[in-house]
């Protein structure tokens, strides 16, 4: 089975978000970057497990500048066979999806994480599925293959739905699909020799633009309530916060 895993580079999960003075961008000073956790822990690892069980190949795809190669090499160190980087500074979700779709023909499964932890859009996987004309199952927490038929559990509000779909398909991976793998020294050494093909982007317009960013208003100081007096807390929740 030929599998493609699309990965993003995102700020590390503990990053304190700061903005530039004109608020049009994130202040990138001191920000550590990682592979988007949903892409790495769940999508990539499940693809590798399926390859180990049934053969095939796992290719990593990233749309981004040369800075992103360190994240791609980590994916190769975890066990992917090769990688493609579309050499681009990006241009919004639909732009990214068109870059991915241009590379994604001929794969049995195209994997995504359920969202990136920076823009939280959960939309690129669905876009790529539509552009390729294949089935899409989002927020999947289990994936089993039987020949070319996938049985997938997807998270829905307060429950799960189990579906069956034949390849080719696109899927976005949520918690539960696999367990994080830490690359070992051999993997890291081998990753340096694995192919990382850089290709140029296809033409596509930007359909959205971030006009500005804003940080949430600072929380006023916590109001401490006497632990003996929970009637007071209930009164405040009712009269002041108006939430009960």
């Amino acid at each position: 089975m030929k599998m493609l895993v699309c990965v993003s580079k995102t700020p590390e999960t503990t990053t304190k978000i700061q903005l530039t003075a004109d608020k049009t961008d994130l202040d990138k000073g001191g920000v550590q970057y990682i592979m988007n956790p949903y892409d790495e822990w769940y999508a990539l690892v499940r693809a590798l497990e399926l390859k180990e069980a049934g053969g095939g190949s796992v290719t990593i795809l990233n749309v981004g500048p040369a800075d992103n190669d360190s994240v791609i090499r980590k994916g190769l160190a975890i066990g992917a066979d090769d990688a493609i980087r579309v050499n681009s500074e990006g241009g919004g979700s639909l732009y990214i999806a068109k870059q991915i779709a241009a590379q994604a023909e001929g794969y049995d499964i195209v994997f995504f994480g359920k969202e990136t932890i920076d823009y939280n859009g959960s939309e690129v996987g669905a876009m790529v599925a539509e552009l390729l004309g294949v089935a899409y199952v989002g927020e999947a927490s289990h994936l089993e293959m039987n020949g070319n038929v996938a049985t997938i559990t997807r998270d829905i509000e307060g429950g799960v739905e189990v579906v069956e779909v034949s390849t080719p398909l696109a899927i976005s991976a949520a918690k539960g699909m696999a367990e994080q793998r830490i690359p070992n020294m051999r993997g890291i050494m081998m990753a340096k020799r694995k192919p990382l093909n850089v290709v140029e982007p296809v033409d596509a317009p930007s359909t959205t633009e971030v006009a500005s960013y804003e940080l949430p208003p600072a929380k006023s100081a916590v109001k401490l309530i006497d632990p003996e007096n929970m009637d007071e807390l209930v009164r405040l929740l009712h009269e002041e916060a108006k939430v009960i």
Partner: protein
Amino acid sequence: MVLVFAEATNGKFKKAAHEVVTYGAKTAAALGSDCVALTLGNVEDAGDLGRFGATKVYNVSAPELAGFDSGVFTAAIAGAAQQLGAKVIVLSHNSTGKNLTGRLAARLDAGSAPGVKAVPVVDGGKFTVRKAVFSGKAFADVEILTDTKVVSLVGNSIPVEESGSAVGVESLTVELPAPKVKVLSTKRAEGTTPLPEAELVVSGGRGLKGPENWGVINDLADALGATTACSRPVADSDWRPHHEHVGQTGVAIHPNLYIAAGISGAIQHLAGVNSSKTIVVINKDPEAPFFKAADYGVVGDLFEVLPRLTEAVKKFKSA
């Protein structure tokens, strides 16, 4: 025209459907346009959406829509939008919406803003809408540059408003592809409101010391009519099911009230809960970082504080 996809579960609308129609009506008002609603499959009393501002309700019913296949649903919504000449499409940012927003945007070659939290600002041809980014650590004002636009609304972001009365329902015929996805089973927890939709949430962390102690959390949740949640270490230790895990890698929630007991407040946990309108933190450690993000704090032993709070809630409810 603004077209709102109003999802029904087992033929009935939930609060999320009323929210998106309210949102669509407000968006239409900002654009000087009309808001219509679209329902798919068999829906009871679809014309009731007129109460929330839809001037008309359309319905597409076909055997292909019996189970959820994002490709088929996308074809139905996009087909309706094209027939009606709708330029803005509104969905819920729930599990269904997350499967559809991107597909619709790609199909219509439209700009999209998934997960918006406020009605768009329309100013001289510019259409700008606010969404949370960096897991709630910041907001972005996103300008959609295309003529056709797709937005999905985060639940519990705007209050439901009644602005009209029931309207007529008209059937539409849209050409649909054969489904590629076959639904084998659908399971939903009965009785409780799912976390992403919950207005009141009571959550426990490692401070509970073990799954056998969850009674104090459940009792408070029952008294409030709240949904229960937990922190990541609790789910990872299998004290509680994974679907209860709130935080950056779990469920992101946005209730009116979030009560956290025995949770220290790691930044990854805060990322999933900081959209809560009011946060109450109960912890015996006055240095717990969560107190900095809280509106109300109780420094004390949760095994004493929670039962006391439960009694106070019961007294308030019966008064």
